C-alpha cells in the first residue's frame, strides 16, 4: 500500500487524461466546471457512469466517469448515423460511455506508470445514473473533478491506495 500523503498528483494526472481524450479523439474543448455547473451535475440523474479498475503490484484503484445522457447522445451522433432502433441507440451510448472511460483510465494508468506506479486496467463497466459514493477507505488518495464540455458537465473520480 502507498503511504498516505505521498504518491502521484492525481488531480494533475486526471486533468491531463480527460483533456487529452476529449481534445485528441473528439476535438472537443474541455474546461474546469464552475460551481453552478457542479451543483447541477451532482443532482442530475440522467446519465451513465463508466468505471475501470486499476490493479498493480503496489497499488489498486478505480476510475469513474459520470456523463450526462444528452451529451453522450450528441457525441454519438457525431460518430456517424445513429441507429433508428432505440435499443441499438442506447447500446451505442453505453458503448461510448464505456470507451470514454476506458480511454481516460488508460491515460491515467500511463500517468501513474510515469510516476512509478505501474498498473493494468480492467475492462470497463457502465451503469445508469450516478453510483454510490466512492469510499476507498483509509490510506487512499482521491481526486474528484468536474469538467464542462460542449455545454455539459462531466465528473471524473479517481482513487488509488
Amino acid at each position, binding site marked *: 500500500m502507498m503511504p498516505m500523503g505521498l504518491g502521484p498528483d492525481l488531480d494533475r494526472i486526471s486533468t491531463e487524461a480527460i483533456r487529452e481524450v476529449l481534445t485528441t479523439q473528439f476535438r472537443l474543448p474541455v474546461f474546469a466546471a464552475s460551481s453552478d455547473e457542479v451543483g447541477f451535475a451532482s443532482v442530475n440523474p440522467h446519465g451513465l457512469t463508466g468505471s475501470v479498475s486499476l490493479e498493480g503490484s503496489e497499488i489498486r484503484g478505480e476510475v469513474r466517469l459520470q456523463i450526462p445522457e444528452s451529451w453522450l447522445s450528441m457525441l454519438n451522433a457525431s460518430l*456517424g*448515423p445513429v441507429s433508428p432502433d432505440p435499443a441499438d441507440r442506447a447500446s451505442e451510448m453505453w*458503448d461510448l460511455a464505456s*470507451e470514454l472511460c*476506458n480511454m481516460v483510465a488508460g*491515460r491515467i494508468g500511463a500517468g501513474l506508470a510515469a510516476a512509478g506506479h*505501474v498498473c*493494468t486496467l480492467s475492462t470497463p463497466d457502465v451503469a445508469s445514473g450516478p453510483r454510490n459514493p466512492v469510499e476507498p477507505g483509509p490510506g487512499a488518495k482521491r481526486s474528484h473533478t468536474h469538467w464542462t464540455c460542449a455545454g455539459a458537465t462531466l465528473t471524473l473520480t479517481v482513487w488509488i491506495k
Partner: protein
Amino acid sequence: MCWRDTHADGMDQVMSTGPRILSVDDSKTVRRMLVRLFEPFQCTLSQAANGEEGLVVATSEKPDLILLDYNMPVMDGLTMMQRLREDVSLRHTPVIMLTAEAGAKQIAAAARLGARDYITKPFQEDLLLSKTARIIPLVLRPSGPSSIEHAPDTTGGQAAPPSAPELKAP
C-alpha cells in the same frame, strides 16, 4: 472504402476493393471511428469484437493489416496475436496495436509477438493513417457519388469524411 462486419451487430458484407483491413476491438465506438476514418480510401474494413472472432475473420479474409485492441472479452489481443503467429497462413500478417493500455510491459509483449506498431488511445487520426500507409497502400477513392453500399444499420459509412492527407504507399 467498403466495410464488412461479421459479429453480432448484424452488418452485412458489401463490396470488395483495395487492401483489406481488419479491426478487432470490443468497442463498437472505436470500430465506428475507424469506419469513418477509412471511408475516403479504397480499402475494405472488416470488423470483429474480440480475438476469437478476429481469428475467424482473419482466417477467411486474409487481411493485409490488422488493427488490434489489447483488452477484450473472450480472447484478448495478445492471445490473438500468439494464435496468428502459430498459423502458417497468417503469421506474417502485419498488426498495429490500437489500445488504451500504455504500459511498457504490454508494449514489449506486443513487440515480442511482432506487432509492427503500437498506438495508444486516444489516437490521433492522422497518425494512425500515416502508420497504416507505411504498411498498405492507402489511396483516396475517386470523388463523385459514393460507390459504397450501406447496410440499413451502418453507423459510419455515410459520415462526413475527416480531414486527412492524401496518403500513398512509399
